[in-house]
């Protein structure tokens, strides 16, 4: 069958396929769910059935075409379950078990060496969400779906209805998780798969967590991953979150990342998109207490026909907090990008500080970007700013570098590294920063393919940065 026959340009048809799938596999989907989770799913399913997918007229979706995603031959795997897998057979690098806090999801299901869910000595629980629903229903029930928004059309309700597995982390109060946790999401399938991974991360009061999320594809086959993550940062907590995406051109990835910060907490989020046919990253932050600080950074390096869409929403619901967005992108060839950053400062959120900046470089005439920084402020004593730039590499700087003997190519690369560096240099975990800098340089030299696998531990038998931190 020619490929085009599989694509239904009518989201309605695709929606119907999915609703039928849900109804036909109802028992399997509900299998591990407690009563509360069951009703959450049913509610989400109802919303999805009613609202369907967003269209071109939906605000925040205007510049992103979804039609290629509506394929009727996508497979949703309800059966695999989290599994014991010798991952080294699938992935070329060693993936470490929980002792080193390196975990893997294969096609949306948790893969493990020893146990699907591990409780560390300090009380931290890391593992499969599917398993956590069974073993820690009281924690899962309390937080799952508590901040993910169901009222928007499309992907969050869909994920909430279908979710089965994903990463679960629970850090109790007063625990500093010293080593970063690395999650590698691998898509490896010969058939087109539609995945709905769901992650739930809870960090307690005065707790500390660094989480690195890597998205990879192992094949050039068609895949569509619709991830929803909920990250709760309790009072005076600290979360350093990274999303590194290096995926094949036939892979589509929609990530909806919801954060909630309580009083005095700190959050760093970095979204680094190196490759991917279609990538959309939604970051939704609720600042729910005073004296919080949030740094939301993003870097996207796109070429060919790649499309990247970054959506950021920050809700200053409490006073005296700071949010800072810095998103930068370099787009080559016919690549396209979207940035939409919205900050809402509510009426009583006095002394809020909110800054937004989106800078883009277009290397070719056919590359394009749509950028919309946006502030909505109802308090009167605030400090807020927003800005966006779209431009080329500075010709004066290019000439300056070339006049000292640097080739056009080298000069161009130096300027691109410098541009990207403003984001990458903010990464606080030093070995990770160095790895990402190297990766970005490689990407900008055109030497990075998706086969380079994961940035952190792959290509070498041992993940250097994790070792460094252990030392």
């Amino acid at each position, binding site marked *: 069958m020619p490929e085009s026959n599989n694509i239904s340009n009518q989201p309605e048809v695709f929606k119907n396929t999915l609703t039928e799938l849900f109804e036909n596999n109802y028992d399997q989907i509900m299998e591990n769910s407690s009563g509360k989770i069951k009703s959450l799913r049913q509610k989400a399913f109802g919303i999805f059935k009613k609202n369907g997918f967003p269209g071109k007229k939906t605000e925040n979706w205007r510049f992103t075409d979804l039609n290629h995603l509506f394929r009727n031959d996508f497979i949703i795997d309800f059966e695999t379950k989290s599994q014991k897998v010798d991952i080294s057979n699938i992935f070329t690098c060693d993936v470490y078990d929980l002792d080193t806090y390196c975990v893997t999801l294969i096609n949306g299901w948790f893969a493990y060496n020893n146990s699907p869910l591990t409780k560390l000595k300090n009380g931290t629980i890391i593992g499969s969400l599917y398993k956590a629903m069974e073993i820690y229903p009281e924690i899962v029930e309390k937080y799952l779906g508590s901040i993910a928004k169901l009222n928007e059309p499309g992907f969050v309700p869909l994920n909430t209805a279908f979710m089965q597995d994903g990463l679960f982390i629970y850090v109790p109060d007063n625990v500093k998780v010293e080593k970063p946790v690395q999650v590698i999401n691998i898509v490896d399938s010969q058939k087109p798969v539609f995945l709905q991974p769901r992650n739930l991360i809870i960090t307690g009061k005065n707790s500390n967590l660094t989480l690195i999320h890597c998205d990879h594809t192992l094949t050039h086959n068609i895949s569509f991953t619709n991830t929803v993550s909920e990250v709760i940062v309790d009072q005076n907590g600290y979360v350093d979150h990274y999303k590194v995406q290096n995926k094949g051109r036939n892979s589509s990835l929609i990530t909806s990342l919801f954060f909630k910060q309580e009083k005095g907490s700190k959050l760093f989020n970095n979204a680094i998109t190196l490759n991917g046919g279609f990538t959309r990253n939604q970051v939704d932050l609720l600042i729910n207490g005073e004296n919080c600080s949030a740094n939301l950074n993003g870097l996207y390096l796109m070429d060919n026909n790649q499309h990247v869409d970054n959506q950021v929403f920050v809700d200053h619901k409490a006073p005296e907090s700071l949010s800072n967005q810095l998103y930068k992108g370099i787009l080559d060839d016919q690549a396209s990008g979207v940035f939409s950053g919205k900050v809402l400062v509510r009426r009583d959120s006095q002394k809020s500080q909110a800054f937004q900046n989106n800078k883009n470089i277009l290397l070719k005439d056919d590359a394009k970007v749509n950028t919309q920084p946006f502030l909505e402020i109802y308090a009167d004593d605030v400090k807020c700013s927003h800005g966006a730039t779209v431009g080329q590499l500075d010709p004066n700087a290019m000439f300056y570098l070339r006049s000292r*003997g640097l080739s056009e190519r080298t000069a161009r690369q*130096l300027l691109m590294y410098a541009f990207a560096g403003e984001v990458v240099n903010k990464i606080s975990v030093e070995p990770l920063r160095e790895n990402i800098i190297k990766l970005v340089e490689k990407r900008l030299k055109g030497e990075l393919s998706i086969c380079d696998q994961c940035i952190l531990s792959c290509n070498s038998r041992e993940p250097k940065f994790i070792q460094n931190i252990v030392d």
Partner: protein
Amino acid sequence: MLSIKNLNVSVEGKPILNGLNLEVKDGEVHAIMGPNGSGKSTLASVIAGRDYFTIEQGEVTYMGKNLLEIPPEVRAKEGIFLGFQYPVEIPGVSMTNFMRTAINEKRKHQGLKPLSGAEFLKLMEEKKKLVKIESKLANRSVNEGFSGGEKKKNEIFQLALLEPKLAVLDETDSGLDIDALKVVANGVNMLKRKDNATILITHYQRLLDYVIPDVVHVLFDGKIVKSGGKELALELEEKGYNWITKET
């Protein structure tokens, strides 16, 4: 070393250089003076290889080669250096990384082995001393947040590192206080050799108190209208450019 014959250059159809002739030999220091808009900076840019203007006519030969056919980076590697009137700020590119890349590109061109990190740092220390530049300039991003004087000193520092055969300094003296001016002049004097040459483009005679030129040219309306020894500069200072314009 450098021979410019009947050079005619225009920018967006507007003629800037109109039949300029200039001969520079090994070991010479030339000063080119002239009022604003006479084409001084355009001349410097043409030599360095900037491409925003059109060469209408004429030839520029450097070391026996047709310079106009050579891209700017190759000119640099062949020994041409432009000291910018307005050095460009490049945030995020470290001075050290930039200069090390520049030197190693040049060494590659000359068939030499690249300098290691340690060798380069040693060279940088030597040159800093030679041109009396404080260390902090080298540790920052290229020209970022530098004062006007620091930027010009940084040009001299790069000059010292790259050791060009032909240096064209475009108003490197303008806007400098007397101490910075001395640093610039000292740099030029220290780096003078029998087999290299310098073209100083300047507005004022002041720099020429510290760097003694072999030839002084007056550029007016896109061509050199008068050439002479160092005393020509003094005469110009005294009588002003009107004296020349009337004469021509």
